[in-house]
């Protein structure tokens, strides 16, 4: 009996996750912002990357960024009320070569 108690705990955890997790499989939808300093001096400084003032709202959808070298913008972000992304909420960073 004790042997199967572990399985019971697993089933209980599965049930709990089924009820508590937001299991949407699609990508988060939200605002997209371009990084104004892309291609400019200081573009890779962490302080600049983390500053919402360096981003401009461009709409909802996917940014045309491909590559891995430099930050070109953020997607699926929430607006902070001033036309910039709110970095305390979830967002997807995009990079470009």
């Amino acid at each position: 009996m004790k042997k199967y108690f572990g399985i019971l705990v697993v089933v209980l955890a599965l049930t709990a996750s089924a009820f508590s997790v937001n299991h949407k499989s699609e990508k988060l939808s939200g605002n997209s912002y371009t990084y104004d300093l892309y291609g400019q001096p200081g573009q890779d400084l962490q302080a600049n990357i983390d500053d919402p003032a360096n981003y401009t709202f461009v709409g909802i959808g996917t940014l045309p960024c491909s590559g891995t070298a430099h930050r070109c913008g953020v997607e699926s972000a929430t607006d902070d009320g001033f036309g910039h992304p709110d970095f305390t909420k979830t967002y997807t960073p995009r990079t470009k070569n």
Partner: protein
Amino acid sequence: MKKSEKILSLLYIVTDYSLIFLFTYTGISKLMDHNNFETTLLQSPIIRNQGEILSWLIPFAELFTVFLLLLNTYKQVGYLLSLLLMAMFTGYITYMILFIPHLPCSCGGILKELSWSNHLLLNSFLIMLIIISLHSISKNKNFIAINRLSRKPV
């Protein structure tokens, strides 16, 4: 059975089932909400580049740990892997508290609602339980080994 042995045995059971529940819950939650989990990992400066691979590796490592914990033969390995995972998570949480506390937690399910400090407390408590259980297992093994050595043939 002595009172201290009873307490250790109870602690061992509590640790065992808590870890099985926690790792199943968080592992499955991370897989079910994989896009969000990956997005949050990509925001973290220290693991940004490995975010994609870690978003798959972490939940599968958690589920593998559960598998080991369920098998009596590999329980000790399961505890060691749990300790390793918890130590890594705790190190990450400490870094986030010290340097970027405004970023959201990439934990699975309702654990996301915990603050970084509460998460650190929970992890520390679980690490303590794992260490005590590992210690009690090795002590038990020594006890069995001593008994085996001293057993005289009938």
